[in-house]
């Protein structure tokens, strides 16, 4: 209407839609549309490409970590060398060495024998010990057992070590390669799924190192983090959203919560170190402290998500409840919270997934210590998945390279599961209006 008033109808070309200028304008608009479409598509393609490169490199780097090379030995347990009452205490290392040396009587020099012994994992004796303790009938017998190969032989078997390189450029000697080839000929080498990765805690030796300690550590961390931040976060959000008067003080609190969500995580680590460890004297490297630090980070996320979920509950529901004479508390707990719960849970899970991947604050409270046993409580020292990745990444042994990537995949797997749960909860429990 306004346009026609400004432009008298006489001045408008009746063929305005078919004129050459109009056609040109139309073409320009279509080109602009196409450009925008291509730009968006390109951006998505770049993002997906980068993601694929990232995942592809991690997966390919982790390839050799999923299997473990073992060597079959015929171990003899002499009856006179062992006390059946106390089967765990015997010199199993000698039994393993004897079994290995017995395979190759032609290797006699102490130096060559030492090199040959280093082909078997240091942990091999414990595998034999556990078998004997579990089955004392083996005492006095000779039996066939698969023991893990040392990392260098594991790498050789997987083809990571290039045997064409000159001997001083590789960590496997010519005599070890020779012995390995003879073991393969005797059908004494095999490769199986690396269960150790999940059943063992950390170790100095890659072939014996696993994520059990880190998984338990992360579990305790998230448990503490959830127990602290979920109830506190929801209570704070309910107060701010449903009860707090709107004044400068609550504005101030709101701004600070938003700022807290943006504070770099390492700052929370410093806080944990200064307050939880030094003032409260809580134990170092403990999942309890880690969980407390992470809950400081998760709290603002949960508060913000809960407030958003509460805001999305239609006011008509509150009015309906108040209209039949429900009190404020009844309105919130009976009607508003159940409707907001899917949103709250989604926010919580996303907050916990962030906490699961957080590394920096855990480094500051000592959760990157070298700990070879899984934690048995929230107070015993432990690592977590991200700090375990950090430790392995720092280790010089060749086998830890692939294991670092494998641990990253495990971490990413848990993140995907948590985020998928969040999506599922949102879809499943969303109220249809």
């Amino acid at each position: 209407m306004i346009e026609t008033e400004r432009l008298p109808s006489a001045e408008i070309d009746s063929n305005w839609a078919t004129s050459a200028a109009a056609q040109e304008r139309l073409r320009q608009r279509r080109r602009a549309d196409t450009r925008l479409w291509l730009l968006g598509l390109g951006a998505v393609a770049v993002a997906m490409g980068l993601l694929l490169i990232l995942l592809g490199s991690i997966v390919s780097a982790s390839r050799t970590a999923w299997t473990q090379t073992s060597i079959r030995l015929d171990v003899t347990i002499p009856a006179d060398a062992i006390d059946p009452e106390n089967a765990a205490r015997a010199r199993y290392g000698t039994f393993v060495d004897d079994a290995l040396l017995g395979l190759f009587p032609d290797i006699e020099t102490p130096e060559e024998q030492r090199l040959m012994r280093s082909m078997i994992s240091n942990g091999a004796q414990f595998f034999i010990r556990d078998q004997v303790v579990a089955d004392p009938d083996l005492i006095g017998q000779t039996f066939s057992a698969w023991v893990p190969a040392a990392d260098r032989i594991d790498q050789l078997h997987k083809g990571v070590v290039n045997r064409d390189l000159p001997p001083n450029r590789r960590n496997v000697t010519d005599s070890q390669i020779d012995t390995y080839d003879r073991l393969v000929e005797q059908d004494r080498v095999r490769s199986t799924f690396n269960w150790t990765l999940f059943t063992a805690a950390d170790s100095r030796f890659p072939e014996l190192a696993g994520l059990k300690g880190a998984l338990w550590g992360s579990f305790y961390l998230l448990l503490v983090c959830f127990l602290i931040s979920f109830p506190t976060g929801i209570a704070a959000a309910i107060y701010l959203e449903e009860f707090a008067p709107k004044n400068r003080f609550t504005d101030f609190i709101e701004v600070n919560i938003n700022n807290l969500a943006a504070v770099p995580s390492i700052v929370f680590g410093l806080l944990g170190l200064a307050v939880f460890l030094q003032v409260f004297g809580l134990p170092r490297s403990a999942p309890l402290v880690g969980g407390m630090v992470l809950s400081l980070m998760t709290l603002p996320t949960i508060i913000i998500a809960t407030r958003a979920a509460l805001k999305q509950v239609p006011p008509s529901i509150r009015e309906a409840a108040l209209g039949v004479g429900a009190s404020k508390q009844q309105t919130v707990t009976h009607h508003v919270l159940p409707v907001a719960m899917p949103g709250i849970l989604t926010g919580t899970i996303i907050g916990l997934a962030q906490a699961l991947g957080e590394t920096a604050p855990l480094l500051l409270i000592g959760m990157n210590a070298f700990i070879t046993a899984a934690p048995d409580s929230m107070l015993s020292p432990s690592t977590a998945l991200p700090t375990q990745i950090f430790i392995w990444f720092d280790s010089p042994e060749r086998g830890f390279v692939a294991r670092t990537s494998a641990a990253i995949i495990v971490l990413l797997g848990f993140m995907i599961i948590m985020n998928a749960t969040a999506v599922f909860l949102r879809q499943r429990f969303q109220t249809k209006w």
Partner: protein
Amino acid sequence: MVAANARDAASASADRATSAAAAAAAAAGQTKVTARKVNLWYGEKQALYDVDIDITSNEVTAFIGPSGCGKSTFLRCINRMNDTIPICRIEGDIRLDGHDIYDKSIDVVQLRARVGMVFQKPNPFPKSIYENIAYGPKIHGLARDKATLDGIVEKSLKGAGLWKEVADRLDEPGLGLSGGQQQRLCIARAIAVSPEVILMDEPCSALDPIATAVVEELIEELRAKYTIVIVTHNMQQAARVSQKTAFFHLGKLIEFSPTSEIFTSPQHQMTQDYITGRFG
């Protein structure tokens, strides 16, 4: 029975009308709700100016007026629903059966059990039909056992004319009903706590004409037991369902008379302009 008066210097005719209304009220029944000099502010903005009104029991009182005239605001004063708006400030005197409802000794939760409300948009809880009705009686402790509660649910649904339609599917979600059924469910929910007054804020504005007719019939039936106050934008509806009509404009009560009078011989020029469609 005191007539409301002395509002505006210019509304002498309105004064006559309220006097007439008060006389009619004395004849029809007791006064249930009285309001005197009710002023209300949203922050700095004044939304109601010196509203005086007497609402008679067992009658339907309709509030009409153009959008933003304060009729819904005043309705929400009667069960203190405006308390939930932090910036809202109210002055004046509103009495239910002679008791000041803004007195400190009045528990707002108890008040809302006595003065039920039905909203513009049907707003059943996202729960089953049964739960929707049973919620109010439960929180007020009206039912000691399941059988009593079942009885209240059935009676309320029958009272709202919905029983026949939903008797076999009480466990289904209330949100699965049609718009008109949802609104009757909300009416059933309101009467389940045995209120004395039912406030209806444009209860039919989200409904189609057939559902509207059903709800209007229901309002006529409910009048026997309850005092009903209805806000409506639809003047025909006010004419059909109400015994008294109050016309609001810019936060002032312009005219309050028996419905038959206000639509045939309005005392105030503004009322006449509005009901003949010249503004609003």
